[in-house]
């Protein structure tokens, strides 16, 4: 674990030390965000037990889950490509991640369209469903914006090929969004 060291916190910290600080900061941010999503999961079970609305489309849930998992894989490949200095592949994988993320968001929007009729937000399951998927979708969209910014900068060669931190950070955030869905998917779709 990185320890408190005045030298590390100075503006003259070495690139390796700065990277260590950046990574630790991002993990602390992810940990704090996890508390929010864990709280939502608790609310889901305390309000509804294991009840799940029968009208929820299992197939749509499964498809968007697989798409989000695939986007994690392409994001992982983008990070590795950047670290190897292969900017061309990095751009390809970032674009693929953006595309898959957009499809996931469209899938959630389709679910919302169906859900508004079947279990509106005024119903107990509806309120839980829209809150959980809404907050998660907000994080997905945030992740897409961050990856789009990073992609744009990689395309304009703003980052040196040796500086892979911006790509790494955006990809880590994207994986976190995926981890959240790993728990939300069974909690919303698979219990009965």
């Amino acid at each position, binding site marked *: 674990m990185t320890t408190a060291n005045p030298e590390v916190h100075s503006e003259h910290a070495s690139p390796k030390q700065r990277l260590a600080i950046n990574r630790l900061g991002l993990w602390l941010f992810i940990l704090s965000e996890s508390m929010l999503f864990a709280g939502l999961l608790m609310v889901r079970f305390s309000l509804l037990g294991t009840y799940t609305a029968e009208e929820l489309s299992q197939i749509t849930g499964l498809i968007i889950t*697989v798409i989000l998992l695939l986007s994690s*894989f392409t994001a*992982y490949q983008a990070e*590795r490509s950047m670290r*190897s200095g*292969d900017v061309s592949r990095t751009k390809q994988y970032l674009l693929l991640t953006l595309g898959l993320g957009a499809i996931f968001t469209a899938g959630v929007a389709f679910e919302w369209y169906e859900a508004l009729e079947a279990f509106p937000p005024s119903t107990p399951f509806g309120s839980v469903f829209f809150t959980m998927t809404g907050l998660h979708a907000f994080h997905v969209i945030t992740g897409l914006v961050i990856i789009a910014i990073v992609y744009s900068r990689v395309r304009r060669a703003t980052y040196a090929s040796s500086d892979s931190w911006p790509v790494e950070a955006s990809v880590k955030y994207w994986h976190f969004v995926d981890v959240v869905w790993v728990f939300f998917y*069974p909690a919303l779709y698979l219990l009965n």
Partner: protein
Amino acid sequence: MTENTPVTKDDRSTGMGIGTKVILILAALTAIEYVIAVAKPPGQIALIFAIAITKAVLIVMYFMHVRQIWEEDHA
């Protein structure tokens, strides 16, 4: 190779192997989750969440490289 070391072309082929294995395991676990939800065996909820935790651990370990936090001081 530490997590900070730039990835070479040869390393990347290994990484592609690890990444591919992880995504295939994740896909298989998702399919198993779905089958459990449909089949509704005893202990369904425990099984489904055990699988979810396994999937999360795989992503955190292999895609998010959580071990980097502890490796910095020794890199």
